[in-house]
């Protein structure tokens, strides 16, 4: 290990279309070959998960993630990153410095994955941000919600006005009776 070499954790976001067409192992091998071409030593490269994206990227709504650990210099990483963004199936990649490779990850290594284990949907579904959320229960017809305080206040003022209106209506009638009395 050179003085300029560090351990990196790398997460690659892969285009599902490419994974579907070429197969997961072929895409993974391309990523590995590109990293090694620039002088990186790939320790671990494995399928992490296939999931819906939180927001669409370049028309993709789902993606396959590839997790890797490598030993390389900073120049190597930047060169490999530049090539991957220009060519190939990598949509995005995140490379972070690590102290050491976890033992559990090191045990996994670079194992072949059966294409049946990497479930990629046949068609790119339309973006639905709430696709993974469970469906809300239907309204069970329970008690009606209580009226809002504003509505209550409005109702009070209306009742008050009505009351005053009623009194006002009574007043002229009373005045009229008084006038009739005075006439007589």
């Amino acid at each position, binding site marked *: 290990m050179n003085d300029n070499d560090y351990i990196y954790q790398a*997460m690659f*976001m892969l285009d599902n279309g490419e994974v579907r067409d070429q197969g997961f192992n072929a895409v993974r091998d391309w990523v590995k070959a590109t990293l090694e071409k620039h002088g990186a030593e790939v320790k671990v490269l494995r399928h*992490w998960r296939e*999931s819906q*994206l*939180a*927001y669409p*990227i370049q028309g993709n709504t789902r*993606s396959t*993630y590839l997790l890797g650990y490598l030993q390389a210099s900073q120049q190597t990483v930047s060169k490999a990153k530049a090539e991957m963004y220009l060519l190939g199936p990598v949509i*995005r990649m*995140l490379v*972070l410095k690590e102290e050491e490779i976890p033992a559990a990850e090191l045990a996994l290594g670079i194992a072949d994955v059966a294409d049946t284990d990497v479930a990629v949907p046949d068609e790119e579904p339309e973006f639905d*941000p709430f696709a993974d959320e469970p469906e809300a229960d239907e309204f069970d017809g329970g008690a009606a919600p209580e009226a809002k305080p504003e509505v209550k206040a409005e109702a009070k003022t209306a009742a008050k006005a009505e009351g005053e209106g009623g009194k006002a209506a009574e007043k002229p009638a009373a005045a009229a009776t008084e006038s009739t009395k005075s006439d007589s």
Partner: protein
Amino acid sequence: MTEEISTVATPQNPNSIEFDYKDVETLLRFVNSQGRIYSAQRTGLNARNQRKMKRAVKYARFLALMPHTV
């Protein structure tokens, strides 16, 4: 003689919390329903851990594991 308290965040330090950008379920506890990161006053984390959490959330957003806004 009083024992000196270590201020460096190490695995032995109980105040140190590690946040992983892959652990979206945990990170979702630190953002509101619109996807905004809660303040340190709200989360109760110290400055170092708040920064770690913020970085993890931003990495998760970059990889579209979490939304920027809802």
